């Protein structure tokens, strides 16, 4: 540990692992440290189940015997799915990390309307059969979707009289004669907005998001989402291996006392008595508390069930969105459910996670509308996490802090943050041609 590293990465969350991989691939000498004895930090999948109990209920807490073998559980701390056509999937494929992982499609996506669960139509047949909207509304909605598919911001003739720079999404809904229910459904279950802000913004980003949804849906089947076998914790580990095979050094279970600063610039990190020198520091907010500010909170309820979620047609994995308006909130409530089919539970057990952005002083009550949809809950763990964003962009200090994981259900914002971090740290865009290990040829 006497040598100097080009970059020291603190924390093995997904973002830090992707950054570490990108830096190593770019020829940087990387040291990657985590204070925990497992990979993933905030984005870990805890296993065995005992680890989850100990985290929430303290040392010695034990799951009930009927919950099966602890090792069969992989419990995510943050619920997210991958959009099949989204940026993270592209990143996984281009970096070859897909060779370490296996994915499954999430079986179905649902939306709540008037207290009832409706399937988000995944194909033409379902769209015609759905009771989510009336006969005439369906036709108008279809017209809208056709327009979305062909819309191109660069070509004015595809705009059909709408101006992407000035007209709002609300105006688009009005032009196509879509009622409030459909607008609600489109904005929250397809574009995956968490609130209604987007209705008053220029419409182009919203149209992009709807297209991402339908392109992802088209890719593999019944839902636009993919999920890695054994849980999301596999993702950071995949990128950690990528970093390691390009020379990155890994140390878990290593407490980090502080980032050492000289003349306003980071020169390394202090671990106990020793100081490891590094030119740059990349870390998650928990390693640089004085360089971030709190911007909000997310509440997540991890629920262990011994049955599928009721009214989901016994889906082995699914997502349910409760649009904010349905429950008189500002932000949507998300439910995600996975099971043995995703290798995250023993047979017969289900993991459901209810999450939302905190907007009152009683966060636990805020997830209640979601919990009520789950049926009997065998065990429930509530966690309230602060969401941080960096106040120091790192230009001077060379400390680059990632943002906390937000309440969105997919990784679009995650990838954006990572690419932003990389660009800030290296002042370059990532060059995928640096990746050589995919050729199966030794370089010797």
């Amino acid at each position: 540990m006497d040598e100097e590293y080009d970059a020291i990465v603190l924390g093995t969350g997904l973002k830090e692992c992707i950054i570490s991989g990108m830096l190593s691939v770019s020829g940087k000498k990387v040291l990657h440290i985590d204070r925990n004895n497992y990979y993933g930090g905030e984005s870990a999948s805890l296993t065995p189940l005992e680890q989850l109990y100990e985290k929430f209920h303290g040392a010695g807490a034990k799951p009930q015997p009927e919950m099966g073998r602890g090792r069969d559980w992989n419990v995510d701390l943050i619920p997210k799915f991958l959009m099949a056509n989204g940026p993270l999937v592209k990143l996984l494929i281009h970096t070859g990390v897909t060779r370490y992982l296996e994915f499954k499609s999430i079986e179905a996506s649902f939306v709540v309307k008037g207290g009832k669960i409706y399937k988000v139509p995944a194909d033409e047949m379902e769209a015609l059969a759905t009771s989510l909207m009336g006969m005439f509304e369906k036709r108008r909605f279809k017209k809208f979707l056709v327009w979305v598919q062909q819309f191109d911001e660069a070509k004015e003739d595809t705009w059909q009289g709408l101006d992407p720079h000035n007209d709002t999404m609300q105006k688009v809904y009005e032009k196509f004669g879509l009622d409030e229910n459909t607008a609600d459904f489109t904005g929250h279950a397809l574009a995956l907005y968490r609130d209604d802000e987007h209705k008053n913004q220029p419409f182009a980003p919203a149209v992009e998001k709807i297209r991402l949804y339908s392109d992802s849906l088209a890719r593999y089947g019944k839902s636009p989402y993919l999920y890695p076998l054994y849980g999301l914790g596999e993702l950071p580990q995949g990128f950690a291996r990528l970093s390691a095979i390009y020379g990155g050094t890994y140390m878990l279970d290593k407490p980090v006392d502080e980032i050492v600063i000289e003349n306003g610039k980071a020169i390394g990190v202090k671990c106990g008595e020793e100081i490891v020198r590094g030119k740059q520091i990349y870390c998650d907010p928990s390693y640089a508390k004085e360089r971030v500010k709190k911007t909000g909170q997310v509440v997540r309820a991890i629920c262990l069930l011994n049955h599928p979620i009721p009214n989901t047609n016994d889906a082995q994995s699914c997502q349910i969105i409760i649009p904010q308006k349905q429950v008189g909130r500002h932000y949507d409530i998300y439910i995600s459910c996975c099971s043995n089919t995703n290798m995250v539970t023993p047979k017969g057990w289900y993991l459901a996670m209810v999450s939302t952005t905190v907007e009152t002083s009683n966060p636990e009550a805020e997830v209640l509308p979601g919990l009520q949809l789950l049926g009997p809950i065998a065990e429930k763990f509530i966690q309230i996490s602060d969401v941080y964003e960096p106040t120091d962009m790192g230009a001077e200090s060379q400390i680059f802090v990632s943002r906390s994981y937000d309440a969105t259900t997919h990784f679009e914002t995650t990838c954006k943050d990572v690419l932003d971090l990389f660009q800030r740290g290296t002042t370059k865009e990532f060059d995928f041609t640096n990746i050589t290990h995919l050729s199966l040829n030794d370089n010797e």
Partner: protein
Amino acid sequence: MSEHHVNIPAPQFSTYATVIDPPKQVTATHPDEMVIYNIMNSSTPVRVPYPTSAPPAIPPPALITRTSEPSAPKKMALAPSSNRNYKQKRTFKVIIVGNAAVGKTCLSFRFCCGRFPEHTEATIGVDFRERSCVIENELLRVQLWDTAGQERYRQSIVAHYYRNVNAVVFVYDVTCRESFNDLSLWIKECEKHGLVGDSEVPRILIGNKCDVECATKVSTDEAQMFADRNNMALFETSVKAASEADHVESIFLTLLHKLQQSKPMHVQSQDERQQKEQERLILKANQTENVEEEGFCC
């Protein structure tokens, strides 16, 4: 109905050869494809090519083998010929574990390239080495996975390294007592990830650097006793010495034959597979208990 298709393009499942292997070998081996379980056909794995602007050509198996490497002095046994059709193709994932600097990378290099690497500094950008062989008209591809240096600080090897593994090669340095003592920790680590010493996942033990003279050598008797207790075959060799090259080759072939026999020749049905999985889980649970009762030696 002309506008209907816009939202619902046809599924893209049938565009690439379906994998006929048992479910263990469905890790994507090519960067431009992802293994996706088609939920509509239950769990039949299907490889879906990912459309990119410039899809690289998939190299035929013959190109992946090392036989054509100009500097390879060794003949490679059982090398496949390029213009034959094999009745079956299987891919095996073999992991190499052991302390740092016992010669894991050199071993995999010797196995797959038939020689000792000229540069011994940390290998960059190598995920696994692969060698193809033919036994009884069946093409076997053996992927030897390296730890990528993540063993230097214990507990830092990623979990997926231990997944879908068909055989484990434990390596120690005969001149380094510590690397031998730590083997029991490596066995524990493997067991933590479900790799117990049953016949389903063959394990072999290799004592490397036997050509180096050293007063505190780990004796063959001691190593043999350890190997017997843990249901492993022991080999002492030197990956570096050219005189041992044939020996290394024969170790590899031993492993290859074990692998070849480790799987039934027919493709299992879904029910068979599940039942077998279930049996194995029970077996594993029992064995794990036994191991814990015994404690570990050394």
